[in-house]
């Protein structure tokens, strides 16, 4: 964010570097049920992002001290493959993935009916195979589909999308260059049925008005992502779920 360069992110006609309009999302494709071992899984491609999510559980909670008599403990793990970015990412947890995992886990807690499975845990593991800006949103969107695919009772899915500022415009779903050279990034996730905000981050520099515009735009993006999530589930389960 905020790196200086001469790149013009938006041309005179209001088109972005990859030809998108300012309120246009990158192509999003989701497939549910792609891994045999997992209780539920999903594969997602969003622009050049490639993300795969797997859900295990509810199962016995380990370590034991994380168990709660009030409900199942969600354990969300966002992880980037070493080859997912240009400069190899050192394997294992870092501060960034720890933070993303924490807030994504909290976001999903709003929709999963954890109280149905006291003392258990539900693991949600997301691997970013290829990263191209917006991976936390891609990961959370895929994770919701994997949870639904695992048959875990939920009030709704969580849908996620980012908006941001490129040049002087508020744009939807930042691409890689817009992320690096843009002025702000606002990732968001909502519960589509109610519009409740379950994840909201922001970094960069925005005026109050721009921030509000960005939130409105990101909400629209979330709704578009939600349509793709539903499509993925219908594609698998129409006709009884036999593939």
């Amino acid at each position, binding site marked *: *964010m*905020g*790196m200086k360069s001469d790149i013009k992110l938006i041309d005179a006609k209001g088109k972005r570097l990859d030809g998108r309009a300012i309120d246009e999302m990158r192509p999003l494709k989701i497939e549910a049920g792609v891994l045999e071992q997992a209780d539920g899984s999903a594969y997602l491609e969003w622009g050049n992002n490639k993300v795969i999510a797997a859900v295990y559980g509810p199962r016995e909670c380990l370590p034991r*001290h*994380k168990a709660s008599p009030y409900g199942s403990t969600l354990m969300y793990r966002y992880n980037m493959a070493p080859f997912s970015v240009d400069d190899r990412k050192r394997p294992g947890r870092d*501060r*960034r993935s*720890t*933070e993303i*995992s*924490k*807030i994504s886990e*909290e976001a999903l*807690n*709003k929709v999963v009916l954890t109280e149905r499975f006291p003392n258990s845990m539900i693991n949600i593991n997301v691997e970013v195979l290829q990263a191209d800006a917006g991976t936390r949103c891609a990961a959370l969107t895929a994770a919701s589909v994997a949870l639904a695919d695992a048959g875990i009772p939920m009030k709704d899915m969580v849908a996620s999308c980012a908006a941001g500022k490129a040049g002087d415009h508020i744009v939807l779903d930042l691409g890689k260059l817009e992320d690096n050279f843009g002025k*702000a990034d*606002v990732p968001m996730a909502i*519960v589509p049925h*109610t*519009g*409740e*905000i*379950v*994840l*909201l*981050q*922001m*970094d*960069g*520099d*925005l*005026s*109050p008005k*721009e*921030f*509000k515009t960005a*939130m409105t735009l990101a*909400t629209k993006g979330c709704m578009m992502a939600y349509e793709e999530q539903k499509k993925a589930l219908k594609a698998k389960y129409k006709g009884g779920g036999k593939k």
Partner: protein
Amino acid sequence: MTFIDPSWGVKSDYVHNLAAKGERADGRGMNDYRKIEVTTDFIPHAPGSALVKMGDTQVIAGISLQAGKPYSDRPNSGVLMTGAELVPLASPEFEAGPPSPKAVEIARVVDRCIRESDSIDMDKLCIEKGEAVWMVMVDMHVLNYAGNIFDAGCLAATAALHNTKMLKFEDGLVIKEKQKTKLPVKKKPVECTFVKVGDAVMLDPSLDEEHALDARITFGMVEKGLCAAQKGGKGSFTQPEIDSAFELAMKKAGELRKHI
């Protein structure tokens, strides 16, 4: 072991019941900060430091300066690193060991707030292009955890940065002697945190309010607008709740800045 106090459940009910009436256990209004005290240069040996008391919460921020290699994509710019330590001395909830997700989140949100506000003039921290730059380390050390480390920590960090004196660099070595010149800091980024308890949204959560919260939102405010934001907690906010909290944050940020 995760520490859970059996009294939290009872206190949480109490906080919820009061919040529904628009009241708080310590008698504050919903949009009031606790009493804030800032002591700068608390650790005179460090190039910069500040102790912030926000009610019973106490956080020290200390600044260290080192010379190091710049990042290859920004050979002219100094480097900022921010850490937070939730030491076991500060609360029965904290454990020794590697930083918990909570500590990582606090450090990263304060880091974003300072970095994205552009408050440190990083280009002035270049010693020799591509070879050596000043690395500014901000370390937040919590001494007593009584809620809202985000705001107290960020206030301490900003106050400490404004109080930081440069060190001398000679023949490839840092001489640990404070100079008269100050670290080039232009702005005063601060954070304002709100929590939602039931349907009520309140500023500056106390410890009991943090244990009872459904959701939390932190705004990193710089003079003209917003530079960082972070939602936390297992609950959610509606759009109008976010909008009104944000409007209030703009007012409250000015109040916080007066302490620096």
